[in-house]
């Protein structure tokens, strides 16, 4: 290798980043070992580069920068999940109606039975009379849907749910998954409770930071099941309070 070639390759022979292929790098090092001028020029150039590089990198870090970065990232994550919960809540409230309609309208039904009106009356009567509390609801659900046992919610923010207002309980279709859904009615107000399982949904973030958000006249409140850590309850109710659907005094401020 001659000096001119060596000088051209010097820029590619940075100690911190191998840019030359091994053959060229070896040839260059061989030339530098034999040529004092090129070796001196290389040393001077690398010394200068190190000197300027250290100066460029020598920037003091502000105190507390790391903590401020982590705080900002945590705030961004919380904001993202609040927006997501709003979308999930609104979708959950609407998806049941829309998907239920299409399933009822278009699902193929071989051997369609003739509706039995007496059966329907008996079913409604059993629905209304046989589930005055969470335990009876759980028993009824186990009989009707043995593959989807229910751990019924009993309280909302330390006040007992009024199962006398329960008007409907069934499996609802949410994002392609069948989940227990309870409907409470009080006058014009409604509250639905969806029971989501970690076997059907990724609940990590909802469990870590259960949100309460408002969207389009509904409130969506996510609460953890106290008896089963793999379940969450999603309350979707009209207005901004569950007061019409609970009994007992409100908890004291602590």
């Amino acid at each position, binding site marked *: 290798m001659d000096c*001119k070639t060596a000088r051209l390759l010097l820029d590619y022979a940075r100690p911190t980043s191998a840019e030359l292929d091994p053959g060229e790098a070896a040839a260059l090092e061989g030339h530098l070992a034999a040529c004092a001028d090129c070796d001196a020029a290389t040393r001077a150039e690398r010394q200068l580069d190190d*000197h300027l590089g250290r*100066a460029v*990198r*020598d*920037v003091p870090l502000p105190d507390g920068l790391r903590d401020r970065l982590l705080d900002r*990232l945590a705030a961004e994550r919380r904001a993202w999940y609040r927006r997501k919960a709003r979308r999930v809540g609104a979708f959950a409230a609407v998806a049941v109606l829309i998907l239920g309609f299409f399933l009822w309208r278009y699902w193929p039904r071989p051997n369609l039975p003739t509706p039995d009106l007496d059966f329907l009356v008996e079913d409604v009567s059993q629905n209304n009379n046989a589930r005055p509390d969470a335990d009876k609801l759980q028993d009824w659900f186990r009989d009707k849907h043995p593959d989807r046992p229910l751990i019924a919610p009993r309280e909302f923010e330390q006040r007992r749910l009024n199962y006398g207002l329960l008007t409907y309980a069934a499996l609802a279709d949410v994002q392609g998954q069948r989940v227990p859904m309870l409907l409470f009615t009080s006058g014009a107000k409604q509250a639905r409770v969806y029971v989501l399982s970690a076997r059907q949904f990724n609940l990590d973030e909802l469990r870590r930071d259960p949100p309460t958000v408002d969207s389009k006249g509904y409130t969506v409140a996510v609460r953890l099941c106290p008896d089963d850590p793999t379940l969450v309850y999603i309350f979707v109710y009209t207005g901004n309070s569950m007061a019409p659907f609970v009994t007992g005094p409100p908890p004291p401020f602590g």
Partner: protein
Amino acid sequence: MGLPGSQRTVQRLVDDYYPALYRYAYRLSGSAADAEDLTQEAFCKAQLNLSQLRDPARAKAWLFSILRNAYLHRVRADRQQHVLSLEDVGDVAEPPADPLPDVDPERLQRALDELPEAFRTPILLYYFEDFSYRDIAGQMDLPLGTVMSRLARAKAHLRSRLLPPAAEVLADGRRRATDGL
């Protein structure tokens, strides 16, 4: 945008790279306040788009790229930047004195601020270690030859501004920055 990256992964990225990222932001922008804003913005974007980082070994280059894009976005909105024209960025300077004098931090930042961004970014990426010429070319979407040329001219500018020349004459055969580029 998809789910934010896991908290643990993001925190590891912060711990590993926030000093280098902040320092790069400071050299790009010339301001501690802007540098901190840019660093926060880069990590927030990284958190939301973590799924795009397929190779963890490329995390540093990826973060630097996000930050540079954020900086360019801000700069485009601010047209009042006093920089040298590309024509004024010089050739290889004379070899400096030996021993090398200390570099004054304010003079260094002024010298960097004088460079157009197209020259400042390569020299900063060059001096922030680990970045190969191909990395720099990839980040700036430039041919390798253009990167080498801009690096040589930016280095010459910094040397001329920061380091006084030695008394010796240049040796024969020492190439100038524009030769062959």
